[in-house]
């Protein structure tokens, strides 16, 4: 790669961030882990050994881009790590703190990737490292050799010989749009074929047309799955941001917390990941600030002073399940019920209204002290909203004194979802198959009324049957009885929706909602059907939640 000084702000900088930011983040996370290990008496030699190579790459690339503050910070960190590798007696808390500060700084500098940054913070940090190193006389020779290697690397360039190509994610989005059009055209073809077949009866040409349309569908499916695979990233790219954040938050709160992760390799569509990081961050912050007891309270309760937060991800039945669990004090169910009651939620019977339907209510926060970090304002309702907007569900389990666990279930991709197309009051709607349990013909006597709400027997249980038109606000007064109901299930809730017609299954390409449309509760997006008409995608999760009111 030759450096174009004449174009220092173009794509090269973008490439630089793409390559170096993950490295810088790994380095910064490793520093946090080092501190933990050192405190536990583990010298963590192999962890230390993983650092210089990464720092070296960041340093070299920063130098190539003329980003001096990042280059010098990486260099100082490299030197400090070199010293720490040689002398284990210097692996102390202050040293770890110094590294962690530098790691954060480096991540910031790389992320901003601007030649116009104030060089002050980096210069001051480099000076701090220099003084720290002089505290016990760093062997200067080694630093020299490090520097020589940098020069070589700086002039040389990329020596990677693998077959990986970096692609701007927007290009993948553009490809997906094209694929989407292909899918729509395919369903238009299939529809036209069906009509033609009905009109003219069987013949050889029609058979061939049918074969071709089937083959086209297979081709498009293959294209879809290949494209989807290219959009997948390991969830570690989001998890990776947590260790440093967790350490800073725990420090600020006076708590001792360690983070255990598993399933970081679980793949998710980048579009999902991008919108997942905020809500996850919020759950982890909540766990530290509200879930964890201070160290003394923990030891009084007979628990280890250091609390544990587990972040686990795993693929499950075509979706991804993520669990955020802490071993803290658990949710205060009484306080939550009291607060919910104050918010006007009817709580006639504790058994009937489970905790999980209360904790995600807007305005519900039982924390007595409002913390700076997990302050008021953004509550679990916002987290739940963000997860629902992704077509996901969120559930909570808690046990007093033992801890709290949030379980999220998310679709692997947002872009193309298998849906059931239904008709309600002459409009077509798409219902994501992920939340459709069954479709049932509505026999005249099958639906009874209890307390003015429709109920039906389903698999031995009574479930609420809501009228589609009433839920959507489209109900016409003089209509024929609806002929089908669709049983929807998500997050432990079940409900049926009465519809006029079941049109069929279709893979739909999800398109957004224009801001001009406001924020409809029951619609999560739009899509284009085979006949070119636009249909709204129903938000099954929101309908399941609102069903108590809307039915």
């Amino acid at each position, binding site marked *: 790669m030759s450096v174009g000084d004449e174009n220092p702000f173009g794509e090269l900088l973008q490439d630089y961030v793409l390559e170096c930011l993950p490295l810088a983040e790994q380095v910064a996370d490793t520093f946090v882990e080092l501190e933990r290990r050192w405190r536990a008496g583990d010298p963590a030699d192999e962890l230390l050994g993983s650092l210089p190579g990464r720092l070296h790459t960041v340093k070299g690339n920063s130098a190539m881009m003329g980003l001096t503050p990042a280059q010098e910070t990486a260099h100082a960190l490299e030197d400090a790590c070199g010293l720490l590798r040689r002398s284990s007696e210097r692996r102390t808390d202050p040293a770890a703190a110094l590294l962690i500060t530098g790691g954060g700084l480096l991540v910031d500098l790389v992320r901003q990737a601007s030649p116009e940054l104030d060089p002050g913070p980096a210069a001051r940090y480099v000076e701090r490292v220099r003084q720290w190193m002089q505290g016990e006389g760093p062997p200067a020779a080694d630093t020299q050799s490090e520097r020589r290697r940098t020069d070589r690397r700086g002039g040389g360039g990329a020596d990677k010989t693998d077959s990986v190509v970096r692609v701007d994610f927007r290009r993948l989005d553009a490809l997906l*749009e094209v694929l*989407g*059009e292909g899918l*729509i055209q395919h369903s238009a073809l299939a529809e036209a074929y069906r009509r033609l077949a009905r009109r003219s009866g069987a013949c050889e040409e029609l058979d061939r047309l049918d074969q071709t349309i089937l083959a086209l569908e297979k081709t498009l499916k293959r294209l879809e799955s290949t494209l989807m695979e290219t959009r997948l990233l390991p969830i570690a790219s989001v998890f990776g941001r947590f260790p440093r954040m967790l350490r800073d938050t725990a420090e600020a709160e006076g708590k001792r917390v360690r983070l255990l992760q598993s399933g970081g390799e679980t793949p998710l569509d980048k579009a999902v990941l991008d919108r997942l990081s905020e809500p996850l961050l919020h759950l982890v912050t909540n766990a530290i600030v509200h879930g964890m007891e201070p160290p003394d309270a923990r030891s009084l309760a007979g628990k280890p002073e250091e609390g544990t937060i587990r972040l686990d991800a795993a693929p499950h039945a075509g979706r991804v399940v993520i669990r955020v669990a802490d071993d803290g004090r658990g949710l205060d169910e009484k306080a939550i019920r009291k607060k919910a009651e104050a918010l006007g939620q009817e709580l006639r019977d504790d058994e009937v209204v489970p905790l999980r339907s209360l904790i995600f209510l807007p305005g519900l926060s039982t924390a007595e002290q409002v913390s700076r970090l997990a302050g008021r304002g953004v509550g679990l309702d916002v987290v739940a909203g963000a997860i629902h907007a992704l077509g996901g569900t969120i559930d909570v389990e808690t046990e007093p004194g033992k801890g709290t666990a949030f379980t999220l279930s998310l679709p692997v991709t947002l872009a193309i979802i298998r849906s059931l197309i239904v008709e309600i009051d002459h*409009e*077509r709607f798409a219902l994501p198959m992920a939340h459709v349990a069954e479709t049932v013909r509505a026999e005249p006597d099958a639906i009874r009324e209890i307390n003015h709400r429709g109920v039906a027997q389903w698999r031995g249980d009574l479930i609420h049957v809501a009228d589609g038109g009433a839920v*959507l*606000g*489209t109900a016409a007064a003089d209509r024929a009885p609806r002929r089908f109901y669709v049983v929807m299930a998500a997050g432990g809730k079940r409900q049926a929706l009465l519809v006029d017609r079941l049109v069929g299954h279709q893979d739909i390409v999800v*398109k*957004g*909602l*224009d*801001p*001009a*449309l*406001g924020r*409809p*509760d*029951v*619609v999560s997006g*739009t899509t*284009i059907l085979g006949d*070119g*008409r*636009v*249909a*709204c995608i129903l938000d099954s999760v929101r309908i399941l939640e609102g069903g108590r009111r809307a039915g």
Partner: protein
Amino acid sequence: MPVEERQIRAPLLGFADAMEARAVADTASAPGPELHLLTFVLEREEFGVPVTQVREVIRVSDITRVPQAPAHVRGVANLRGRILAVVELRSRLGLPPADLTPRSRVVVVEVRGRVLGLLVDAVRQVTKVPEASVVPAPEEVISADVDYLRGVARWQSRLIILLDLEKALLPTE
């Protein structure tokens, strides 16, 4: 200007020039700066919006209603694979909504980077009117929540009500 937009706008402008040539021939002279308008009909009134904000005019047969959308939104339509939100300009201007007719059109406009469709009863023409012909709307018909009337052009025995699309379509921003 992006190529696509130019391609769409060019015929409009060509049409406007032709209309203008006729107008000039009719009146011999139209001095002073001019407003370049696309005019359309709602109820019985003629409205005008700047041609520079118009991307194209389309015929739509299917507008899908969106549950719980604001009252002045008619729904969404398929604009060559893009989802276009269609504003019911009638209800936005305090007129009763009307059924689609063969003359109904959607005027696709771009306002502050956002593309929206305006459902109108019919499109009349692309025309130029002298700025000097524009007078403020009579105070009696203006109220606080009707700030989207820019004025009225009196031109060749016509009254063209000039709409401020930013105020009419992005009222809360």
